[in-house]
């Protein structure tokens, strides 16, 4: 019989196919030559084929019913990556791969109303794998195949958009579907292929994982290294022609334990740098793993938290995560538009939403803060727009939103924050979110103020949030307007001078706006959080930078817990434990 394995090629996802917290393997990539001359074959073929398609679509003999597109773009992602993963002290996988794919975006109608309107946004992007070699004919035919599919989809969606527009009531926000922007031209050297000593790194990653053999109650661990060098190539019918390289090396250490009562607890730490050479030395990685192990052994024996409403300090790292989740996501442009969105800040432009000593910018043009590399940096966003430093909040007053090319009532243009992973339609997203303060004090003073504040409120202690994990910010209307951040390490700081006490099972309750207004002062040391952020337009690398914060009031409760018992038998490595 004819074999059943072959069908139309399936779409695939490569660019920034990264995942939250690194538990899931990345699309893994590796070596192959990528000389500059080669790359221009890709870009030139994309450009020529886009031109041909733009002139031909809707203009074929007999095309009376076929509307030509008003916008067409090709965004190719050429990614080379290596992934090494270890668990229980030994290698689970090590792979290298190279992958090229392209997103074809077709827009039909007018910028005011097109096939992407409302719920149809995602349908305008068609993703397909591209040949790795610079075979013009193969690249051109692949683009033709994807453009045909994308155009058919766009015609279909445009028809639906028109029908829906006729039957529904007037929308709250009548902004156009696509902003008018100048064509962008940006040339850059493509990212080089990944070059690392794999065998040496495999041994290093194993050794980090092996540290957990010292901790018999840490029943699960994972150490993963990913190095991804990627270059994006964008051409559009508006005349844009953009090359943007991005390199990132990342190590994630995750460890898990379970308390006797069944509560699961995890700790993780990540290390990021532009290239593998910039990652910390081995001793530092192993020390970090050991610290996580010690922390989990302490946490599983820590007393359970009690419901509490009183003063609290967020460490710099915790503040960075908190601002990214609670504030940053709500400042994304598209969240101000659409009937399903919460629109927390939509009508608050020009109003004070934070204490006046705080300002917030998002600056993807910054590649490092002090000496720490920022993973949310880029030169052009995924719509080709030049990255911009955006002052979101100045002295507590809301100034603007994170804008892609999707306009909203208050802002009609992109500010270079249209971001997405391959295969998704870009939306307004964070890059490097930076929180600054004019009321910065040494952290020792902050601690004193915490104790004073607790005394004033008649509380026996205040809380110190040392580490917080990012959850998912829920901003849709039918969900509670609560932020989802999971406190991992929380201490009670007693007013009577007792030593600080670790507690477990803390979860934060309350509304975001209220919590942010209760910031009394900040620390004087900025901390960087590099991470992978997931939202509707996919997973993308981001950074957040913030000082520690003292809040007059933070409401917490016990988190719901699992009730599975800890493992019955000791872990096989238990005898090796100290």
């Amino acid at each position: 019989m004819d074999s059943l394995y072959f069908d139309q090629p399936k779409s695939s996802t490569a660019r920034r196919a990264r995942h939250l917290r690194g538990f899931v393997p990345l699309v893994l990539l590796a070596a192959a030559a990528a000389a500059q001359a080669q790359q221009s074959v890709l870009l030139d073929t994309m450009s020529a084929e886009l031109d041909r398609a733009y002139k031909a679509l809707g203009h074929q003999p007999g095309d009376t019913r076929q509307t030509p597109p008003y916008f067409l773009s090709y965004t190719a992602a050429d990614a080379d990556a290596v992934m090494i993963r270890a668990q229980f002290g030994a290698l689970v996988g090590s792979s290298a791969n190279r992958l090229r794919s392209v997103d074809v975006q077709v827009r039909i109608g007018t910028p005011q109303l097109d096939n992407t309107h409302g719920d149809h946004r995602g349908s305008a992007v068609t993703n397909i794998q591209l040949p790795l070699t610079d075979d013009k004919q193969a690249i051109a035919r692949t683009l033709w195949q994807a453009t045909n599919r994308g155009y058919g989809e766009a015609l279909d969606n445009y028809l639906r958009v028109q029908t829906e527009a006729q039957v529904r009531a007037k929308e709250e926000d009548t902004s156009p579907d696509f902003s008018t922007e100048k064509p962008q031209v940006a040339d850059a050297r493509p990212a080089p292929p990944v070059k690392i000593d794999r065998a040496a790194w495999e041994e290093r990653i194993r050794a980090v994982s092996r540290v957990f053999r010292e901790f018999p109650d840490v029943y699960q661990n994972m150490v993963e290294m990913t190095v991804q060098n990627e270059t994006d190539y964008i051409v559009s019918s508006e005349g844009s022609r953009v090359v943007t390289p991005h390199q990132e090396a990342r190590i994630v250490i995750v460890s898990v334990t379970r308390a006797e009562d069944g509560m699961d607890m995890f700790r993780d730490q990540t290390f990021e740098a532009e290239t593998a050479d910039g990652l910390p030395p081995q001793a530092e990685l192993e020390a970090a793993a050991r610290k996580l192990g010690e922390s989990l052994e302490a946490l599983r024996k820590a007393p359970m938290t009690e419901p509490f409403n009183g003063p609290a300090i967020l460490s710099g790292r915790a503040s960075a995560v908190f601002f990214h989740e609670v504030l940053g996501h709500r400042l994304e442009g598209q969240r101000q538009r659409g009937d399903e969105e919460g629109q927390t800040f939509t009508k608050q432009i020009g109003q004070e939403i934070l204490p006046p000593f705080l300002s917030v910018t998002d600056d993807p043009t910054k590649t490092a803060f002090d000496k720490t590399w920022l993973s949310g940096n880029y030169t052009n966003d995924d719509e080709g727009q030049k990255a911009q430093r955006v002052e979101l909040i100045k002295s507590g007053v809301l100034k603007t939103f994170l804008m892609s090319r999707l306009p909203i009532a208050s802002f009609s243009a992109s500010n270079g924050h249209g971001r997405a992973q391959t295969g998704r339609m870009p939306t307004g997203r964070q890059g490097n979110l930076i929180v600054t303060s004019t009321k910065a004090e040494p952290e020792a003073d902050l601690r004193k103020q915490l104790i004073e504040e607790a005394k004033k409120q008649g509380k026996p202690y205040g809380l110190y949030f040392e580490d917080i994990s990012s959850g998912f910010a829920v901003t849709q209307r039918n969900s509670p307007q609560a932020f989802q951040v999971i406190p991992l390490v929380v201490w009670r700081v007693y007013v009577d001078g007792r030593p600080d006490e670790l507690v477990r099972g803390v979860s934060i309750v309350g509304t975001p706006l209220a919590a942010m207004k209760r910031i009394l002062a900040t620390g004087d040391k900025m901390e960087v959080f590099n991470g992978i952020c997931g939202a509707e337009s996919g997973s993308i690398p981001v950074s957040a930078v913030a000082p520690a914060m003292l809040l007059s009031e933070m409401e917490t409760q016990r988190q719901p817990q699992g009730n599975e018992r800890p493992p019955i038998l000791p872990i096989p490595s238990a005898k090796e434990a100290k």
Partner: protein
Amino acid sequence: MLLRRFALAALAASLVMPALRAAEPTRADAEKDPILKAMLTELDRSMASLQLKDFQKPFFIQYRVEDIDDFDTRASFGASLGANRSKARVVRVTVLVGDYKTDSSTPRGDGVAELTTVDNDPIALRSTLWAVTDQAYKTALAAYAQKQAELKQVQTPPQADDLSHEKPVVSLSAPGALTLDARAETDWTARVAKWSGLFRTDATVKALLPDIEYSNATFHARSDTTRLVNSEGTIMRRAETVYTEGFGVGTQAADGMHLDRSGASNGVVLSDIDSPEKFEKHAVELIASLGDLKKAPVIEDEYHGPVLLSSDAAATALNRLLGSSFMGTRPRLGTEARTGSAFASSYHARVLPDFLDVVDDPALATWEGKRLLGSYDIDDEGVPAQQVSLVAAGKLENYLIGRQPVRDFPQSNGHGRASVAGPARPMPSVLKITAKDGLSDDALQKKLIDLAKDRDLKNVYYVETMGGPLTPRLVYRISPDGKRELVRGATLADLDLRALRSSVNAAGNTLWLDNLATDIPESVLAPALLFDDLTLKKANEKNDKLPFYPAPE
């Protein structure tokens, strides 16, 4: 580091030891393999000590560990899309509580699967086994309680035990490996790139189809070394390899109908698959056939009458219809059904014409010089393979049985088979369908035409090959004068078990081999079948718009 090198050396040493199987291997032999040794250590520890206070201990634990070495290279329109070589090791742990009569197994298939280390590090491997065993045991306790409750809800008791008693076996084959070095990988990548571009480079077809919409080629090689130990004392090490080259191409006819052709050549060793020259020639023929299909008329609205399925087409149809019907899967609780499959009530009944026999024979290793992908000597539950006579003179005599018995079949017949990381299920291995007094291809063609003449039909049909199980790809309309014409867009509407039982007029005397590189590899040997009365009609699939603009040069 030193320690690991030593362990690897020990493994390597164990590989070159003389064939152990002949000498009735023992547990001591098995323990020379560091992976098996780690598995046995953790198995013993779990059987001895794994118990939650006030709950019962497991009565059965099984560890299956699979080493996968995989190479895959893909190309489209003449250029490579990428190649991957990857190694992975997967564990699957089954823990049962209760007893052989009533255990904690559920219809979903039991056990928990997890990736583990590819290093030969016993502590790391045992750590994964430990974590998964703990989880599987707790799940089994909950499932057992649930099952006890469900048993109280039904009047009819289960028709068979939950787990069969089997004699423990120690069977140790050498671990498998892919015979592909970096050079061979590069060669295959270049080869599939070339094949995927034949539509634009081959002189005989390049002018034929400017509107080729896809043209893909792949090469895939996989080695799977399975190690299994269970608490009854079975220890097994078995290696399987699969090599596949594939090609697919498609376009649309002027009316928008999608036209697709594809082909694959699969084998146990590299020398079993078609030579590059032969495969390339086949690929060119497939492209050329699209040209013929494009010009071919669409089949008539509906046809009832004689249809001849070539042995190729019959193999596809028979496997689809019979393969799953023979499975001795456990029936739904509370029913008196024998199995959960289509032949549940057909034991000793006639299911095929009396001139047809069916056996499933995992021990059949080759056919006409070709190794069979579905062949094995021991199954994925550690039970030695057995030849099973399923249908004799048209009557159902047997089922395919794994370790979950069904009524009247208390023992496994070595057909418990699993995909990588999957639970074992009773599955066919080498399904062989033969006809008594079968006819030659020429005689069948003549008989087809005779039927047309006898019944005064203006034409009859011949199906040469299938795309999907019931979707013919190449169908010929044959007039009583013997004229053949290719038609497109046909579907077989009523090719079902009833048609197999009562509409087969004659069968061929030669067998077609389908070596299927599916998740659970399988081989099918089948003769051509002439049906008295089948329905062929227009598929009426959606005819998509033709490409909106011309293909590039």
